[in-house]
């Protein structure tokens, strides 16, 4: 790999749903590092049944952590969902002003200075991960500031702690961290090590192994968005075996 000039990594995240315990640590870590105001969730953890696509089954309940089935035949799994950083992203296609764009490393970002706030991207995203700045940002007193600085990629303002009213925002794969070789903060924060981040162009990386031969799946593959976030399906225990 070192021989290649102008090497651009292909950033990919794999979420091992076998390991996820639904503790929301990644969601809270995300809120802290990105200084997300109250009511904003770039990252959220859905309560699901094992290996259910997101539309196959009616919810067991409107509430978190409610299993499917009746005792003792219950089942429960979790699906952490943030921006899927699609390679063929509907949001990039619909944005009338190219404010949402895809970087060469696969990261989909929003230019805070260009977005006109039409919210077409929110209508187009199949994963519902985009957040709009409806009014003045509210914070809990004594909150953590997190990264706390503006971050530019080229001439694009892709993160700012001072939220401008009337623009759309979402998960950035912690672009300010991955650009200096660190992992996204949710990966660091996960107590179970359920999130794995790496370079798909590097055949030796753990993510390459999961994506190429480990059975990692994308969310809504039938929509052809080709996300850069993958999920390892829950390996069910067969009754009778231990």
């Amino acid at each position, binding site marked *: 790999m070192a021989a290649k000039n102008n090497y651009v990594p292909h950033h990919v995240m794999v979420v091992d749903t076998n390991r996820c315990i639904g503790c929301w640590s990644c969601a809270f870590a995300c809120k802290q590092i990105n200084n997300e105001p109250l009511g904003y969730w770039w990252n959220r953890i859905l309560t699901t049944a094992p290996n259910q696509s997101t539309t196959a089954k009616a919810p067991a309940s409107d509430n978190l952590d409610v299993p499917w089935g009746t005792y003792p035949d219950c089942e429960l799994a979790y699906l952490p969902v943030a921006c899927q950083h699609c390679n063929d992203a509907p949001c990039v296609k619909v944005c009338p002003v190219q404010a949402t764009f895809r970087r060469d490393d696969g990261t989909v970002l929003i230019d805070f200075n260009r977005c006109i706030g039409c919210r077409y991207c929110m*209508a187009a995203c199949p994963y519902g991960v985009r957040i709009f700045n409806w009014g003045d940002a509210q914070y809990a007193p004594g909150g953590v500031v997190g990264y706390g600085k503006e971050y530019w990629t080229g001439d694009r303002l892709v993160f700012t702690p001072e939220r401008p009213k009337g623009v759309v925002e979402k998960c950035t794969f912690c672009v300010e961290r991955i650009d200096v070789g660190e992992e996204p903060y949710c990966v660091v924060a996960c107590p179970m090590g359920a999130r794995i981040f790496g370079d798909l162009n590097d055949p030796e990386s753990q993510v390459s192994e999961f994506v190429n031969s480990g059975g990692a799946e994308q969310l809504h593959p039938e929509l052809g968005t080709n996300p850069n976030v993958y999920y390892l399906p829950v390996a069910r225990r067969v009754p009778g075996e231990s």
Partner: protein
Amino acid sequence: MATTTAALPARATRTFRPIWAWYAALVALMAWGLGAWIDELHYGLAATGMRDVVSWGMYIFTFAFFIGLSAGGLIMASSAEVFGIKALRPLSRLGVLSAAACVAVAALMIIPDLGKPIRIINIFIHPNWTSPLIWDILIITVYFVFSVVDLYVLQRQAAEPSRWRKVMRVMAYVGLPTAILLHSVTAWIFGLQIARSWWNTSLMAPLFVVSAVLSGTALVTLLALCAERYGKIELAEDTRRWLRGFITVSLIIDLFFVGCDYITVLWGNVPSDRSALNLVLPGGPWAWLFWVEWIVGGVIPLAFLVVPRLKKLPGALGLSAVLVIVGVYAFRIELVVLGFVNPLTQYPPGNAVGTYNPATSSFQLIGRYHPTWVEIGIVLGLVALFAALVTIGYKSLHVIESAPAGEHRAKAAIAETTAGS
């Protein structure tokens, strides 16, 4: 000439008071709308009922509604030429006027929906040609310019029929495809989106075109009836028959298309499609839309349009036009809002709302939406603007011969106008 000079002062004294009351009401509504918009600019879109789950609301469905309303006039004016429907020719100018006013109001309806209205300039600096929105803005601009030019041509043609006749015919042939394109591109804003199965159907563009013809013709009918009522001119029976025919046929096709969509979803029984349709079918939380669309805007106007005994009643045409417009508005609400209300991910807790309210959850599984007074005020202000544009336009065009009672009256009126100008 004698009749005209005798009639004019009498009408002027009679309509002086009501017209000023009408203008005052419109100005009051526009002032309310402007005030509401200033309020929204100050507080941001948090002043509206939209949130991250239902992220498009009243502005967008009213926008789609006005785009639809703009169809009727231009299609009618063009059909009069292209298909040689003489009976509709008197309504050409009124129709094109309402088309221009509708599309202008529709374009303005987008402005308060933007989070950063000042940055609308970015659309021209950094256009993204894969976005249906860019194409829609393009076609809206073309359509508006076309309507204004067409209005000018029709006005000149009324004065010098032989000289402008050819230009008018060319405009008619260009106008019809332009109108159809406008509705198709607006439909594709929704219909091309893979994310929401409620929208993602190739039926969307045909449905938009037919419901546009339906509501647009109904609007022109209403305007013509108003002109008849307050302008003291009579609609020819032939004109009424064509208007009734247009509304009836497009209403039947519209209901047929919507029915096709329902049957496809019901038979297929795909969970994400079914959960959307269940919201609007009787028993669902949005069932009132179903009743407004199928009964108030469907069966009742259809009865007043086709049942021989009912259609002879004096207000039958006007009543059906009003009901049909109400039904199409319900359809626009159903189309836009239910696409968002139906959960993208069926799993709790759903999607983040994006604002904080200590009394409720920050998440919604099934979207909720109620327009606030800010949204209602802005929309009513723009509706008032439409009414003002049509009133002022109609008065300044002197569309006196627009709806003659019969051939004799028509010839007399044209002769009068030609002599007068």
